[in-house]
Each structure stands twice: as structure tokens, then as C-alpha cells.
């Protein structure tokens, strides 16, 4: 069965190639820092399951140390100039979009095939990681297409991938670091503490205030943890189920679904949701690392108000 481990082998190979290519780039004054950083990520993908928890912990501290003392740099050698790119673009025309669309297209067709044919039960792909496995397939097909059509130098995908990964820099591992911070928060009992705290602020008999507190609790806790999944069980236990559903008789489907969506408004406003908010800022080379969050706040706040109204009206008045 094709599962996540196949992808980890592939990702490990890619980061190992980035490490080697960094070591050979004399235009980067900090090339050994980059080599060590991408090399450690390759080690994590390949051997993470054999290192043990403490071993992985030390690996994490090493990554943090490299980033913390600013040992990551960038090479300065551009692969092709803007003029060359304009020239290529004119010569190759709109066909250039095709390889880029292979990845989403494989995801599209693959998901449909998997969900609506007997493929689902064939045991070929692990159903839990089907989206990521299809992404991996899409990448491989797109790479083969590019090699056959454009005939780039053999190492070109590695060099170009490294150019992009260097521009993201340390933010590459931030989403994974935040997920492990979540694990530590859970183990140290942060969730139960916040739940207990939210439970002590019992609104005085006003359904609307209870709804407001539930939605705001989802937003704030989501902003702290970086995702609404960690917040939902805590807020459901503290307010959603005992007060809104059991005491006030709210519609459980509305309280559940819209409560989660109120949390998503929090996801739009927090740097802790790094893969949605911080990594894109690096990927798009924005000067302000909080630029994406700034663009999202004016959508998130009115949408939160809409969610509070939906919770109140659909949950209690319909």
C-alpha cells in the first residue's frame, strides 16, 4: 500500500539534494548553514522513526539553533535572466501552463477516481493520506513531462527548487514546529486549563452572551493553538455542549458546524497558522511577514460577526 512513508523517502531525497547543492554554491556566504539545515530535514524524513523521541528532540533543537543564530543565507546566482524568461515565454507559449496544471489535475482526477470507484477498497493507496500521495504522483508526472519537453540540465529541478526553498528559509519548518508545540501544550494541560477558565465565566442566563463567548473562545483559542481542531473539543466541552446544547436547547448541528467555522476566522488572523499565513508571505517574498494576515483581518472580523448571528438565529430561533 502506498502510504506517507513513500512520500517521506521522496521528500528526504529532495532535501538531501538541496543540502548537496547548497554546499556547492560558493555565491552563498552562509552555505554551510544551509547545508546543515536542509541536511537535518533530510535526516528527519529518512530516519525520524529510528531516532527515538529524544533524538528527534535534539534534531529540533539543532534546527532551531541554526535558524536562531542566523546561519541561513541565499545564493546570488540567478538561473535565467528576466529577458531570457520573456524569450522562453514567447517561444513556448501557453503550453507552458500545462506542466503547472498537471499537479492540480492529477489531484482532481485522482480524488474523483478514488472516492467514486472501487479503487478506494483496492488497498493500493492508504485512504488516510490519499491527497498527499496524489500530490506526490502529480509532482513526478510533471517532472517527467518537463524533462522530456524542455530538456533542462539534469540538476535544474534541484537548483530551482533550492532557489525557492532558500527564499522561504527557516519558515519551512515553522508549521511542523508549531504542530509539535501543540503536542507539548496538550501534554502540559494547557487545553484543560483554558477550558476550565472559559467554564468559570458562565454568562448570566443570556443565550446571546453564551453564543458570543463560545464563538470568541473558539477564535482566541484557535489563534493561540494555530488551528481550530485543537480548540473545538475544548470549547465544546466547556461551553458548546453543557450550556448551549444541553441547558439552552440549541440545535447541535449548528453549534458544532458553525462553532468550528468561527474558529476558522481565528485561523485567518494568527501567525501560529504558519502554513497558511507565514509561509505564503515568504513564498511571495513580501517585505512584511504578517502581510497575508493583514490582508485577511478585514474579512475575518465581519465573517465572525456573521457566524455569531448564524449561531444565534439558526441555533436557537429557527
Amino acid at each position, binding site marked *: 500500500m502506498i502510504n506517507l512513508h513513500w512520500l517521506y523517502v521522496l521528500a528526504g531525497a529532495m532535501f538531501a539534494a538541496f543540502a548537496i547543492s547548497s554546499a556547492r554554491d560558493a555565491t552563498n556566504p552562509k552555505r554551510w548553514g544551509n547545508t546543515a539545515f536542509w541536511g537535518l530535514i533530510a535526516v528527519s524524513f529518512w530516519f525520524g522513526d529510528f531516532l527515538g523521541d529524544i533524538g528527534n528532540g535534539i534534531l529540533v533543537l539543532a534546527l532551531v539553533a541554526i535558524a536562531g543564530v542566523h546561519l541561513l543565507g541565499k545564493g546570488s546566482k540567478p538561473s535565467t535572466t528576466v529577458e531570457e524568461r520573456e524569450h522562453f*515565454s514567447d517561444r513556448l507559449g501557453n503550453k507552458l501552463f500545462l506542466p503547472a496544471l498537471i499537479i492540480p489535475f492529477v489531484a482532481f482526477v485522482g480524488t474523483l477516481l478514488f472516492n467514486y470507484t472501487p479503487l478506494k477498497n483496492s488497498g493500493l493507496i492508504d485512504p488516510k493520506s490519499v491527497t498527499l500521495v496524489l500530490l506526490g504522483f502529480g509532482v513526478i508526472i510533471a517532472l517527467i513531462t518537463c524533462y522530456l519537453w524542455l530538456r533542462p540540465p539534469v540538476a535544474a529541478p534541484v537548483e530551482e527548487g533550492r532557489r525557492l526553498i532558500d527564499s522561504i528559509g527557516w519558515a519551512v519548518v515553522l508549521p511542523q514546529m508549531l504542530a509539535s508545540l501543540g503536542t507539548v501544550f496538550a501534554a502540559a494541560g494547557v487545553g484543560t486549563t483554558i477550558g476550565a477558565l472559559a467554564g468559570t465565566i458562565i454568562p448570566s442566563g443570556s443565550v446571546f452572551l453564551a453564543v458570543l463567548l463560545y464563538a470568541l473562545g473558539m477564535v482566541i483559542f484557535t489563534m493561540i493553538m494555530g488551528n481550530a481542531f485543537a480548540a473545538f473539543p475544548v470549547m465544546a466541552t466547556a461551553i458548546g455542549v453543557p450550556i448551549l446544547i444541553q441547558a439552552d436547547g440549541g440545535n447541535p448541528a449548528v453549534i458544532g*458546524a458553525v462553532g468550528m467555522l468561527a474558529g476558522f476566522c481565528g485561523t485567518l488572523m494568527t501567525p501560529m497558522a504558519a502554513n497558511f499565513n507565514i509561509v505564503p508571505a515568504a513564498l511571495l517574498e513580501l517585505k512584511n511577514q504578517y502581510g497575508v494576515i493583514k490582508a485577511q483581518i478585514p474579512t475575518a472580523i465581519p465573517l465572525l460577526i456573521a457566524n455569531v448571528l448564524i449561531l444565534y438565529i439558526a441555533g436557537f430561533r429557527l
Partner: protein
Amino acid sequence: MINYWPLLGIALVVVGFALRFNPLLVVAVAAIVTGLFGGMPFLKVLGTLGHGFNENRYVSIIYLVLPVIGLLERYGLQQRARTMIVRMRGATTGRLLLGYLAFRQILAALGLIAVGGHAQMVRPLVAPMAEAAAEKAHGKLDDATTDRVRAMSAATDNVGVFFGEDIFIAIASILLIQGSLASFGIELTPFELSVWAIPTAICAFLIHGSRLLLFDRQLQRSSR
């Protein structure tokens, strides 16, 4: 008696991010402080951190697309995306992103969340197209405006996927809601939950969509 000390870790994260220390450093320090105040010995904290990091490697799988995207950029993909928009009549930044918002929400509602995303779609296609549309109407953009157009492109991708995906019944968050409520003896089907994602999805489209159309006017004003 509740132990409030672990909450100190949250305060450290907030202060660290606000003062713009290196976020990796902030997160590592916050994790260790939280664990120690939560009564865990140091090695246990280190092990929990390492375990969490290893278990969440799948988050970083998305970077596999970078070699393909980088290679296509070498052959002028961003320039091609610009050319296409410049030739298209009536294309503005706001309308283009509005179309992308609808596309992203509808596909996510059908469970196709992997069609889209910052590395595969926004950087190589959506952002260059949005920039080209802005330049076509308003001339060369200054750096601050370019960044605003790019940030709006990324924001549109996020809003589209967040407020589309819950309409699909087999998505992780719907299953989590179902499981959490079931532990209290409240039995719901995924379908009962996912229909209640529709009103919010419509509100998200109206709110963010209006902002996108207003964005065209803001670009107009800042170009004068």
C-alpha cells in the same frame, strides 16, 4: 485548584512574535517553558517536542512541488501568466481574484482541496496574474502596492479553501465535530453538519468578494 503556570508559554509566544524574535526560537523556548511549568521533567519535554515534530512531518510534504514550480519559472511561467492577463479584455485584479475565490470554494466543497494552494497555484499563477491585471489598469506598481496585491492573492486562496471545505462531508474537521459531539452522546451524521457550513460559505463569498471588488477602486486611488 487549576495550575495556571503552563499558560505562561502562551504569553511567551505572543510577546516573542510581537517583538519579532526568530519564530523558531520563540516556539522552542515556549514549548520548553510550558512543559517545565506543566510539571514535566526536561527530557520528557524534549521527547514530546521531538515526537510531535516527527509525527507532523506530513505538513512539510507540500514542498515537493517546489522543484517543478521553480523549473517552470526558469522557462518563463510567471511571464506567461502575465502575458495572458494583459491580452484578456476586462480583466481586473478584483474580478480575477473573485473568480479564483469562487473556483476555490466550489472545488473545496467537492472535496478537491488539493487543487489550489500557495506553492502550486498562488506563487506561479494567481499572484503574477493579479499583479499583471493591476499593472495593466494602473501602470507600474510601487513595492508596497505589489505586496498588497500578492497578499490579497494569498488571502483569497485561504478564504476560499477554509469556507468551502466544510461543505464536503468527508473532510477532517467535520469528522472531528461528529466525534467530539458523539462523546457526549449527541449523534449526528456528517451530512447534517456539512449543510450548516453553507450559510457561512455564502457569507464568506459575499464579504471577501465585496472586498475584492473594492480593492480595484483602492488600486485606482493609490495610482493617482
